[in-house]
């Protein structure tokens, strides 16, 4: 039992070092924003896919925002991908089509496989442009966002682009405030550090873009995964395409306001991410492709982030059992010193990352909520562990993966 525990601790230490490295890079390193200053160009034609499944509360807001985007009108086509909606989504989309003739072409999907990836896959028959942007229906893009997300595609090495997601409903309750902090850490520090260090920024599947020729090269959208964005990131990487992150391309989103919705969301992410881990870990590490050594290592660590939750749980259990069995290597001295050292630095790594992100954002008081993140992490650890366990047991229980749409909380359209 001792050696598995040592192994788990070693893994945790690797991720701890990674957190610190990213945070210090973000605070003191060279910041890469190579495409953000392209403000004049012969802008290419772009198709914007808006994934919508029962989105009557939010769909009109994103369509209104897109219609007022600062992008040449004759070079931008919006395709709302209405995936089997049973509410007023279709009616609202059709009204916009009448109000903005030629600028919106609806794709009403009434049957077929469920899930965002399957819907996007079907909608691709309407796409004729080399640059594709993707938004979920609850997002509200600003005027300059489309140009910012298109600009990186002038780089022939770029296959995917990811912008920054900013929670809009921050002040609703403790959960939304904690998610705001988590998002800040994840994007402002984690993603930007990966961009700075030329590692593997992750495609998020919304506020994002993909190059049509790259998508075709890798076989299109994978509708057998719960997280088509993670899947896309790795298939692009293995095919020699870069995904880039644009920290200043910010877009508001709505975050879950109830714990059950949040738990469902993170469980779906965990399952999808783990699917990618199983599929791409070995090809990424040992395959013959163009990814650099640092991309291989970072990509591998990124694939493992959700597995760390159950491993941490197992580590806690092992530590307790070993303690009560009286197993203490080297009379416990090294164990005590290691524990003390880790308690003062290791546990702090993720908090440090978030604190740095909040500081970089120029926020002041919200940093006070940092201690409550322990609550968010605890819920995530158990939810992700449960998701991992259900995945492991799926061959026995026969459970099939299905895509759960995240519930919306806005009260009016």
């Amino acid at each position, binding site marked *: 039992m001792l050696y598995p525990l040592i192994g788990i601790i070693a893994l945790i230490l690797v991720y701890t070092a990674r957190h610190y490295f990213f945070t210090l890079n973000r605070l003191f390193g060279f910041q*890469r924003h*190579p*495409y953000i*200053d*392209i*403000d*004049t*160009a*012969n802008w*290419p*034609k772009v198709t914007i896919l808006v994934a919508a499944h029962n989105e009557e509360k939010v769909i009109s807001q994103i369509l209104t*925002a897109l219609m007022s985007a*600062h992008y040449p009108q004759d*070079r931008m086509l919006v395709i709302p991908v209405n995936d089997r909606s049973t509410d007023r989504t279709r009616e609202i989309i059709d009204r916009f089509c009448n109000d903005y003739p030629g600028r919106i072409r609806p794709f009403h999907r009434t049957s077929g496989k469920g899930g965002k990836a399957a819907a996007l896959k079907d909608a691709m028959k309407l796409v004729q442009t*080399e640059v594709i942007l993707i938004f979920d229906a609850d997002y*509200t893009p*600003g*005027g*300059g966002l489309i*140009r*910012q997300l298109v*600009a990186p595609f*002038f*780089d*022939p*090495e770029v296959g995917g682009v990811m912008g920054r997601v*900013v*929670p*809009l*409903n*921050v*002040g609703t309750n*403790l959960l939304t*405030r904690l998610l*705001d902090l988590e998002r*800040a850490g994840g994007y402002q520090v984690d993603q930007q550090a990966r961009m700075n260090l030329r590692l593997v920024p992750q495609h998020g599947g919304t506020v994002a873009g993909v190059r049509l*020729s790259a998508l075709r090269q890798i076989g299109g959208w994978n509708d057998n995964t719960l997280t088509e964005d993670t899947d896309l990131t790795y298939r692009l990487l293995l095919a*020699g395409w870069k995904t880039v992150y644009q920290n200043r391309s*910010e*877009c*508001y989103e709505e975050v879950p306001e109830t714990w059950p919705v949040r738990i469902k969301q993170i469980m779906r992410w965990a399952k999808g991410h783990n699917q990618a881990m199983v599929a791409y870990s070995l090809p990424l590490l040992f395959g013959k492709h*163009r990814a650099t050594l640092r991309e291989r290592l970072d990509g591998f660590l990124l694939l493992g982030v959700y597995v760390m939750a159950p491993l941490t749980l197992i580590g806690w259990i092992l530590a307790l059992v070993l303690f009560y069995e009286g197993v203490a290597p080297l009379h416990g001295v090294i164990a005590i010193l290691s524990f003390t050292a880790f308690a003062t630095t290791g546990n702090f790594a993720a908090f440090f990352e978030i604190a740095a992100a909040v500081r970089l*954002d120029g*926020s*002041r*008081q*919200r940093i*006070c*909520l*940092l*201690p*409550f993140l322990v609550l968010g992490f605890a819920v995530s650890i158990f939810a992700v562990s449960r998701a991992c366990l259900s995945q492991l047991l799926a061959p026995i229980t026969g459970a099939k993966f299905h895509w759960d749409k995240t519930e919306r909380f806005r009260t009016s359209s």
Partner: protein
Amino acid sequence: MNPALATALLVLLVGILFVVPLLPALIELRLKRDAYPLNVIQQYAGEIRHFSYGFRVYMEVLLEPLQKCAVSGTALKGAMPDGDEYLLLGHSSAALSSSIGKKTPNCSSIVAAGVDMVFPDGITFTKEVYAANKLVSGQRNIFQALLGENDIHLGRASTIIRWAHAVGALRAEPDCDLHGRISSDLKIQLESGCAFQRLNAPCIALGNSKAEVPDDLAETGEISLPIGRRLVDEDLEIKAGEVVAINIITRGRLHIRAGARVLGSVKSNQHMTLDANVSVEGSLISASTMHIGPDCRIAGPVIAEHGMAIETGTRCGSIGTPTTVTAPTIEIADGVMVFGTVWARTEGRVVPKR
């Protein structure tokens, strides 16, 4: 002490010790002092003229009195509704002298000129300047911000601190320091020794290049570029005169020899060199530094993540297909022309022809 009381006190003490570190969090949760979404300006589109447009709206209340001053040839002092003082010049800049500090030549009023105006040398304008007609500044003038509804001509070694916009042409004599946003609806011409950060105009002429639009660059419309690509893991050299009909991406250095023509886009992850007369139909991107030789033609965006030098005679973009040239530091030789935007985050400079 009563054991029960002692236990209760101990529990209370532990409770307090546990809660004290959480007090700031509890207070913030309750008061919601910082519970607003991160400020994402929804209408922000990176418009270089943003501040000049705002200033024009701000100046609307003064346009009528300015017109009267211009007709009567008088000057007028007053204060804006927000308390800022203004000086309207209707005939000449003579009235400026009474507004300028005696020890230091500073003008602390908003200055608006209603007719063609020539400013004397060495004045620092600490507020915005508005010119309804042509404006010729003296040497070593320092402007906070400057809006010209016609041409602007900046005298030698003048400085713009924040922004300047000319509806007509904007010309800067040698050794001007142009910080912030410099734009024109017609053309910008910067002479040798000028430093800049962000420039935008249909035509930007650096150094002594003629700011007229050559006919061969006036094509319009969308360019159809190849979508195939060639990935190269080491250094690459494209031979002189070679025509390449594909996008090129190198992990190492890239050297494009004289007269070569690339019909797609080019990316190198290390230093990129273009010799003379190279033509690139797509974009030109270096994850490191870039040197563009003389008389090259680049149609798409030009990006270098660490620094860039462009030699004389090179053209980037065209009137019909404007583009962006961007790097932290840009060194542009006399005789370069860019159609669209030049953006040097740290500093750009026009240098003499080599």
